[in-house]
């Protein structure tokens, strides 16, 4: 009886965490994760290299408090030369991972470098919780066939040295792990406010204090009224605690994904937390990415209002991501990347005669 139950549980775990997904979806997700990781890697570049330079110069006055991971592997502080080597290796590996060149190896090397790099930053300072899902997902990528779709590997496999067929569907474990980690993160944050903060967390002063204590651009406006803060407390905890429902219901994602993104943008404006872009871009784990181009094309073909709405939404999103990313990546690179995406989309749409209906459907198994 127990053995049968256990067996069913394990099979259920397999079905839940390793569903068949289109190879293009996993490939696109790999690219998104690697690019977010690259952004984070570059963002921490100055801080980690400055610490390494201080180590080399013997002027480091910040205490080295290693995170457990580095302690486990006995990794100590790096000097400037070693840090530069790690920096270049990680950045190249994540670029290759984004392109899907030797995808699994690149992702594995990128993940090791990412953990090491983040560990250095956190060991010289304090750990942050804005890239938990990113780190766990990045580590999961090498264990799936992430180069089977939307990757240089896939192109090469199809054409060189001789034409071969590629898999249309692969196991999407990294996507599911990302989804569950995000749901766990939001749910845990909401529940801990309920359990640790209790009823008093909803008195309005608490959210007001949290907002004004961090003093963002809109703290004064949004946090002025205690009654309004009370209302927002309920909303914040409700969205966070109920977010795991997005795992179950595809329809509810239309509510939870925008609300979670809105939540992070508001914390940026009211709490000076920073944009938290690593988290809200990771929410793409809940989106069937291979269907995004077709959805955009439908939006652009449906009529003037729909076209304007779609174009405006994409432009705003691109401006937001580009604006945030420009803190770590120079504008010309971002503009070049954006142009490449646009050109790819135009080429893709032209190949289909600008007809979204002509696109073969795929079955999302999320």
């Amino acid at each position: 009886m127990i053995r049968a139950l256990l067996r069913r549980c394990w099979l259920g775990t397999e079905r839940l965490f390793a569903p068949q997904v289109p190879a293009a979806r996993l490939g696109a997700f790999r690219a998104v994760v690697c690019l977010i990781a690259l952004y984070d890697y570059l963002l921490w570049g100055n801080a980690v290299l400055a610490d390494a330079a201080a180590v080399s110069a013997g002027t480091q006055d910040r205490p080295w408090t290693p995170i457990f991971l580095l302690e486990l592997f006995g990794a100590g502080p790096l000097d400037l030369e070693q840090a530069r080597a790690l920096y270049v290796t990680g950045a190249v590996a994540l670029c290759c991972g984004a392109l899907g060149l030797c995808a699994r190896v690149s992702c594995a090397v990128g993940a090791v470098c990412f953990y090491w790099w983040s560990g250095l930053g956190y060991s010289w300072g304090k750990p942050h919780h804005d890239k938990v899902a990113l780190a766990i997902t990045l580590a999961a990528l090498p264990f799936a066939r992430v180069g089977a779709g939307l990757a240089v590997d896939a192109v090469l496999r199809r054409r060189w040295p001789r034409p071969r067929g590629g898999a249309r569907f692969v196991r999407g474990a990294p996507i599911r792990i990302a989804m569950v980690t995000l749901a766990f993160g939001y749910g845990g944050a909401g529940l801990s406010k309920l359990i640790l903060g209790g009823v008093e967390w909803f008195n309005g002063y608490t959210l007001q204090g949290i907002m004004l204590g961090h003093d963002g651009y809109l703290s004064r406006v949004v946090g002025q009224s205690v009654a309004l803060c009370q209302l927002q407390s309920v909303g914040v905890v409700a969205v966070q605690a109920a977010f795991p429902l997005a795992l179950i219901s595809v329809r509810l994602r239309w509510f939870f994904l925008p609300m979670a993104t809105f939540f992070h943008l508001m914390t940026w404006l009211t709490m000076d937390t920073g944009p938290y872009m690593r988290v809200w871009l990771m929410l793409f784990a809940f989106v069937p990415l291979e269907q995004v181009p077709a959805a955009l094309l439908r939006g652009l073909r449906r009529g003037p209002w729909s076209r304007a709405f779609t174009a405006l939404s994409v432009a705003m999103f691109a401006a937001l991501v580009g604006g945030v990313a420009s803190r770590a990546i120079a504008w010309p690179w971002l503009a070049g990347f954006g142009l490449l995406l646009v050109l790819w989309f135009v080429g893709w749409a032209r190949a289909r005669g600008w007809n979204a209906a002509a696109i073969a459907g795929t079955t999302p198994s999320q």
Partner: protein
Amino acid sequence: MGDLASAARRSGAAAGLALVAFAASLSGQARRFLPFDGAVPRAREQVVLGALSVERVDGALRLRERDEASSRPAPCTHPEGTGRVHALARTGFGQCVVAADNGLFVLDEAHPVADLADLRDGVPEGAVLGVVPRGDGRVFVCTSEIFACVDLRHGFGASFGGPEGAPPPPYLGLSAVGDELVLRTAAGDFSYVPDQGAPPRPAGDRVDRAELQVAYGDALPLSPPVTAAGRYQLRARRKHHHLLRPLVDGALPGLRPGYHTVEVYALDRDLRRREVGRYGVYVPLPPRFSTAGLLAAGVGGLVVLAACAWPRRGRRRVARAALRVGVVSVLGLQVLAALLGYGRSWPFMGFSMYTETYREGSLLYKPQVLGLRDDGGEVALSDWDLGLRQDGYWQVLSELAYGDEPLLQRHLDIVRSRRPRYRVTGLRILDTRKRLTVDGPVDVAPVVVREWRP
């Protein structure tokens, strides 16, 4: 024999005299309260802070701008107001301290709202009857029962009692005549001159240094050798924490696993302080969390998990087992981190952030560094302006509040090179404060932790 006896008596008397002299030198501060026969000035009725005038009118606190004909009642964040105001004083940092029935209040020109001063321990309770500033952030205060020195920069105080030779209460008020404090008591007036003699210092004028280790959960005993004329107290801070905590029975409790730099300061009764000890303290993880133990537990857990998860039939059993073990491990570690909640276990972290609660009257703090100009102007400086690499405000505050002059000079030079138009010639390190009230948040006078000019 008689000579021997008289010699012994003489030497005994000499030893006794020496002992008395030694004791007198040790308790030298105890003799500095002297009867005062002069005229005692009345408490100040007005303090001018730039264009703002703070006034005491019939026991009420009032404000008047330079161009205003009449004064207005001063707003107060205390639900019951300040109560009757007994004295006003201007600190060396341009703030007004108000001694009132409901406590010690503070306000300044930019924050013309009376707010309770930020005091944590060693501070007398009850109506404050008098206040006299020392110009460096310290003030002397008295209630009807206690005469005390209070350090507004760090939020603690020290009361004077019998061992310090304080006259018996009840006290009626406190005034200043030149450098002298005049404590008015029911039995007469007494004068006291603070800051006499040398402050406590490390024995041999060398700060005691050592590498220490203490078990997690134990308090760290600290007893650096100190040379002091009179009683002194020891307080300690850990690097990155700017508050000086009193030692509990000569020990510092509450150190978490990891490496800490602990600085110990000796303070005399006038709260003049000197660093007397600096220790590197290692608190190892409890045995159950040791690296080897965790590794062994982790490997053992994985083996057991793999045995449970191994598919009995079907294809690709290794891959399926790896998936099962991987998924359960990742989820299990996330749950464990959520229960334990400790940042060093990144990327498995808990959710205790933002679970603190605030209520009406709570205070919010945010450190800030101001650049000071020679013309009296100020400009807010960012981390980049100062060349700081810390990723937390408190670390910045701590580093600048306790940093030596060369360190501050280095940061000032960076400001001058990066922001030449600011024309900054000094630094003021603040802990800004917001008070949550039923009418909304109110910016109140900051704690001035340090002001420095080369």
